[in-house]
C-alpha cells in the first residue's frame, strides 16, 4: 500500500530524516514510535506533502506521489488525523465531518457519516455544536472521524494520545483497534509505545531521524532498548 524508501529530509542544515525506509501493507496497522524530536512529525509531513524530501521515494499503490500536492494525495486515498486535532473550530461538528468527505460523493458521505456516528456516538449527540466547544478527547475523536469521512485506504494518525487523560487514550486506541479489524490500513505515529503496541501488526522505532528497530509488537516488547526507553523498564 505505502512504501517509503530511503527518505532523506533536511531542514536547512539539519538532517531530520536519514534514509528512512518503511512500508504499510494492505489492511495492516503500523506504528512509528519515537521520542519528541525523533522525526515522527517530519515523516507524516513528508507523506502528506508539506515537506519536500531531498532524497528517496514515497510510493502509494505502486505510484510515486513525491511531486503531488497534499490535496491530490488525499484524492488518492490518504487521510490524516493531525497532531493537535486541528479541527475547524468555528464550524459545527457536522460541518467538520462534511469537510472530511470534501472530495467524496453524497452517497459516500452519507454512508461514512453513519459509520462514524456508530463508531463515535458522542459526535452524533453533539453534531450541531461548534467543534471548539468539544472536550479534548471528543476533539481527537472528531479528528479521526473527519479523516474517516473520505473513506481512506490509508489513515495517518499523528500523536493522537498527546494531552489526553489515560482513560481517553484507551478509548481512542480501542477505536484504532476496531478500524484495523475493519481492514483500514493505518500508519500510527506515537510516543505512547505501550498502547500503540497493543493495536498494531508491526512497529518501527525512530531515533534521531533513523529507523533503529523494526518488528512485531511481541518482538519489540522483548527488546531491552524498547523496554528501557519506551515501556518504562
Amino acid at each position, binding site marked *: 500500500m505505502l512504501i517509503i524508501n530511503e527518505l532523506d529530509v533536511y531542514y536547512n542544515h539539519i538532517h531530520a530524516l536519514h534514509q528512512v525506509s518503511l512500508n504499510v501493507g494492505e489492511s495492516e496497522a503500523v506504528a512509528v514510535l519515537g521520542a519528541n524530536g525523533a522525526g515522527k512529525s517530519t515523516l507524516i509531513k513528508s507523506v*502528506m*506533502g*508539506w515537506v519536500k524530501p531531498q532524497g528517496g521515494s514515497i510510493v502509494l499503490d505502486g505510484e510515486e506521489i513525491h511531486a503531488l*500536492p*497534499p*490535496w491530490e494525495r*488525499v*484524492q488518492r486515498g490518504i*487521510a*490524516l488525523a*493531525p497532531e493537535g486535532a*486541528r*479541527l*475547524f*473550530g*468555528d*464550524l*459545527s461538528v457536522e*460541518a467538520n465531518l*462534511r*469537510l*472530511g468527505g*470534501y*472530495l467524496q460523493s453524497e452517497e459516500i458521505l452519507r454512508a461514512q457519516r453513519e459509520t462514524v456516528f456508530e463508531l463515535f456516538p458522542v459526535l452524533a449527540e*453533539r453534531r*450541531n*455544536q*461548534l467543534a471548539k*466547544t*468539544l*472536550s479534548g478527547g*471528543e476533539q481527537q475523536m472528531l479528528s479521526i472521524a*473527519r*479523516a474517516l469521512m*473520505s473513506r481512506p485506504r490509508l489513515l495517518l494518525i499523528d500523536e493522537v494520545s498527546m494531552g489526553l487523560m489515560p482513560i481517553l487514550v484507551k478509548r481512542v486506541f480501542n477505536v484504532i483497534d476496531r478500524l484495523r479489524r475493519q481492514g483500514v490500513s493505518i500508519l500510527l505515529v506515537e510516543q505512547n509505545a505501550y498502547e500503540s503496541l497493543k493495536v498494531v501488526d508491526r512497529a518501527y522505532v525512530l531515533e534521531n531521524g533513523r529507523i533503529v528497530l523494526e518488528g512485531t509488537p511481541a518482538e519489540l516488547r522483548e527488546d531491552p532498548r524498547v523496554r528501557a526507553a519506551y515501556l518504562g523498564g
Partner: protein
Amino acid sequence: MSGYIISIAVFVGIWVSLALSLNILVGYAGQVSLGHAAFFGIGAYTSAVLTVRYEQSFWVGILAAILVTGIVGAFLGLPSLRVRHDFLVLATMGINFVVVAIFKYVDFFGGAMGLVNLPAPALLGLSFRGGPAYLTLVWIYAGLTLLVSWYLSQTWAGLALNTVRIDEEAAEAVGVSVPRFKIYAFVISAALAGGAGSLYAHFIGSVFPDTFAFVESIAILSMVIVGGVGTLRGPIFGAVLLKSAPEFLRFAQDYRFTLYGALLVLMMLFQPMGLLGKESWLWNLARRRFRRAPSSALAPEEVS
C-alpha cells in the same frame, strides 16, 4: 428626495458593494487585503477607457469592468499563494500603489488629469443621469453583491473558503486545494469591486487616479471591520455608517481618514469582531431585545 441626499445614497450603495466584496476575501477566505481600492479603480478605468476612448455604452463598460477586474484579480491574488498574514497585507498595499501609479503615469489612462466626460447609462433612449434611476441601478448592484455573498456562504465553495481562513494545513488535509480557493476568492472579490468602480465612474462622470489610492483601501477595510467581518450584516452596516456619517457631520469630513484610523484601533482593542459581528456586544443586545428568546436555539450548547 433632494439631489444631495440621492448622491449620498448612491455613494453608500457603491461602498456597500465594495465592503461586501472585500468581505468575501477577508471574512470568508481570511486573506487580509489593503489593496481593495486598486480593484475599485481598475473597474472604474476599464469602464472609462471603453466608453470615452472607444465610445462603447455604459453596459459594455460595466460588464467589461467586472470581467477585466476579475481576471486581474486572479493575477494580483498570486502573492497570496506565497505569503501569508502581515506579508500579504504589505504585498496588497504595494499592488495598490503600483496600480495608482500606472493610472497616473500612463498617458492612455489620462495621467493625473484622469478621464472625463463619461456617458451616463441609457436604456431604450432613457438616460439614467443623476436622480432616482441611477440610485436604483446602484442598489440593484449592491443587492447583487449581497446575493453572491449569501449564495457563496451556502455552498461547498463557501465552506472550503472557511477552511482556508481557519487552518490552511487542515484544509489541505481534507483535500481542499488551498491555492485554487484563494484565487477564487480574489477573482470574485475583485470582479464585484470592479463593477462598483464602473458605477462610481459613470455617476461622477470622470475618473482620477487619487480616488483609488491606498487610503481608500483603508476606508473600505474599516467598514468591513467596524461592521463585523465575515457576516453579511456587518459590511453593509459598516459601509452605511462610515460613508454617510461624515456627510451629515460636516466637521468630520476633513478628518474622515483620522476617524477611520481611530475607529480601526478602537475596534481592534474592544470589539475585534465588529459592532454587529458574531458575539459582539451590540448584536447580542439587539438579539435579546428583539427576539425575547434565549439565543440558545442558534448558539451551540455549552459543554460541561
